């Protein structure tokens, strides 16, 4: 075991995969000489050289598309978006080319690319820089979507992502980069589609992922201390594939569900989860499924308003739990 930050854990995965497979290339704006806008790739240019760690111009459609093309010939590009928010500039390449090329070629072409970067609000960077597109990406069959909540998962899932033969959208979080956790040594991978029961409980199930796992765990501890409630917290880890079985097993135990996500509720990941749970476990439910998410508006800049009101936080999660249980 080593104690690594989320950032270091991703860097470790990238480094180990670079060393393991000569076709792995890391590309993006400021990833090399500047050591990464958020320092995920710090030191990697020095260690692995400019063939493996490549700075690109500000041309997301161009370089993401180029990475998709290169992956069709067997390169394994790991492309950094400085913010996932800039994916919209490359949207056509992602949803038309990466997602569809395998299908449209009748399975002849694989597209083993990873696109990674932070996707979160909470840093007061305003509406253009705070997108959380996991629902949008997951809407497109052909893409896989990963949203790790902690260092150990980030490392193991990144290794899986790079080895995966499909396009993997890997959504990190600038507010998690500095958070440290225990990370097992060695070549550990995690299969996609295996959720983690982050906390066991019997009174209610919180289904969540990404940074919202932290809010949910904090809320669960407080509800235990204040009200003696035992809340189960499921960290999905990947949105597509989605570990429906783990969710349903938990619902069969607790019969009450709250979904916590940093998504606006309309057509969110939570919308899909709620639909799936009621389709497949309607009889297990003792109360309507509720959601705690982002207030339905573009991201506001005003720092305390974004943090305290617009985004999920432990207080809002507690309010959500109590409402489901009421």
């Amino acid at each position, binding site marked *: 075991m080593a104690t690594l930050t989320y950032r270091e854990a991703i860097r470790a995965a990238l480094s180990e995969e670079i060393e393991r497979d000569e076709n792995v290339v890391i590309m993006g704006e400021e990833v090399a000489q500047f050591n990464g806008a958020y320092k995920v790739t710090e030191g990697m240019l020095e260690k692995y050289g400019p063939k493996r760690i490549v700075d690109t111009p500000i041309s997301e*459609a161009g370089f993401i598309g180029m990475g998709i093309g290169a992956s069709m010939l067997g390169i394994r590009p790991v492309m950094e978006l400085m913010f996932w928010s800039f994916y919209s500039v490359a949207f056509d390449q992602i949803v038309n080319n990466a997602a569809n090329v395998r299908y449209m070629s009748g399975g002849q072409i694989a597209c083993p690319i990873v696109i990674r970067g932070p996707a979160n609000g909470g840093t007061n*960077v305003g509406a253009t820089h705070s997108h959380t597109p996991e629902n949008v990406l997951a809407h497109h069959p052909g893409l896989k979507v990963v949203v790790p909540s902690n260092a150990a998962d980030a490392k193991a899932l990144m290794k899986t992502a790079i080895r995966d033969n499909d396009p993997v959208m890997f959504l990190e979080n600038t507010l998690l980069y500095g958070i440290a956790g225990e990370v097992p040594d060695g070549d550990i991978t995690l299969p996609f589609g295996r959720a983690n029961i982050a906390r066991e409980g019997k009174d209610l199930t919180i289904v969540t992922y990404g940074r919202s796992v932290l809010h949910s765990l904090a809320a669960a501890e407080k509800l235990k201390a204040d009200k003696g409630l035992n809340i189960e917290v499921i960290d999905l880890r990947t949105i597509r594939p989605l570990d429906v079985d783990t969710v349903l097993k938990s619902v069969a135990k607790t019969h009450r569900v709250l979904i916590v996500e940093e998504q606006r*509720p309309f057509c969110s990941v939570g919308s899909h989860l709620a639909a799936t749970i009621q389709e497949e476990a309607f009889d297990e439910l003792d109360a309507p499924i509720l959601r*705690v998410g982002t*207030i*339905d508006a*573009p991201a506001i800049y005003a720092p305390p*308003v974004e943090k305290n*009101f617009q985004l999920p936080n432990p207080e809002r999660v507690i309010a*959500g739990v109590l409402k489901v249980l009421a």
Partner: protein
Amino acid sequence: MSKKTSVPAENAATPPSVAVPSPHAKAPANAALNAEQKIELYRKMVRIRRFEERCLPVYNQGKIGGFLHLYIGQEAVAVGACSLMGKDDHVITVYRDHGHAIAVGMDTRALMAELYGKVTGCSKGKGGSMHYFAPDLNYWGGHGIVGGQIPLGTGLAYAVKYKGLKGAAMAFMGDGAVNQGAVHEAYNLAALWDLPVLFVIENNRYSMGTSQERSSAGQLGKRAEAYDMDWYQCGGHDIYEVRATLDEALQRAREQHKPAVVEIDTYRYRGHSVADPDKTYRDRKEIEDYRNTKDPIQLFQNQLLHEKVLTEALIAEIDAAARAEAERAVEFSEASPFPTADDIQKDVYWETDQPQRTSEGRIFFNSVK
């Protein structure tokens, strides 16, 4: 189409940007200025600099969230350009937008309050540093996505022409933005449809930590030639040079609906944003050289002293007033309230901000609040 050298330097041996007297003083746009107008140009540059310098401690106290991209060193570009605007001319720029905002006449109290995220800010605390707007002053933002504003600027020009007005749009971008596809698509539209737009590249030599040589093939302005557009290149340190060049390009745009690319050499002294440690991509000496020999405020001060338009006393007075103005902006911001939780869902749709809805059905969807 070709490169236009609008204002030939009188003495090619001296770098045009550093010469005093300025070789561009006699250009029509500058010869037409009276003393008061010249002082106003100088004052605006000083006000921008003092405003931004005052932002720094506020940021360091944690009162400004997100990013803070300072314009210090580039003031002559925004002030020179915006001083040429007539009532049907428009401007749009990037996240490094404080200079343009002050140049078009926005109130620095509202600008500072926006950085604080206060409801008295120019965007009611919703936009932040990167998203200043003042459509009443023909200032269309403040845009966070590199290159995304360039089609918008082209659209402003389209609307001006469509309405039969004699105006033009100036769409600003950095040297890093020229590699975005949207920029090239806009170039083609503007040239194809004869739209009165100037694509103004503020070439400060770096996009974040990447030098121009490491990000762009060829000369930036020259890409205009592929679209049969004229292009200009000029220094951005001498405000007279900026005005001389843009005046000519603007007149062609207004009168003949001719778009052009204008590449302006400039320099930022601070990091890309305040968060940039600025250690990996340029050396201190380069910054010092610009400060010492090409500072736009110093150059214009020298010029106006030479012209006997400014006096030492007036210089001191302008500076003191600019500092006091920045201080008042801070006080105003401190005293202003934040938006409320209810404000989050205002300003999303035109119709929900009106007393009466115009459509049916549910517009907003909320989870547990």
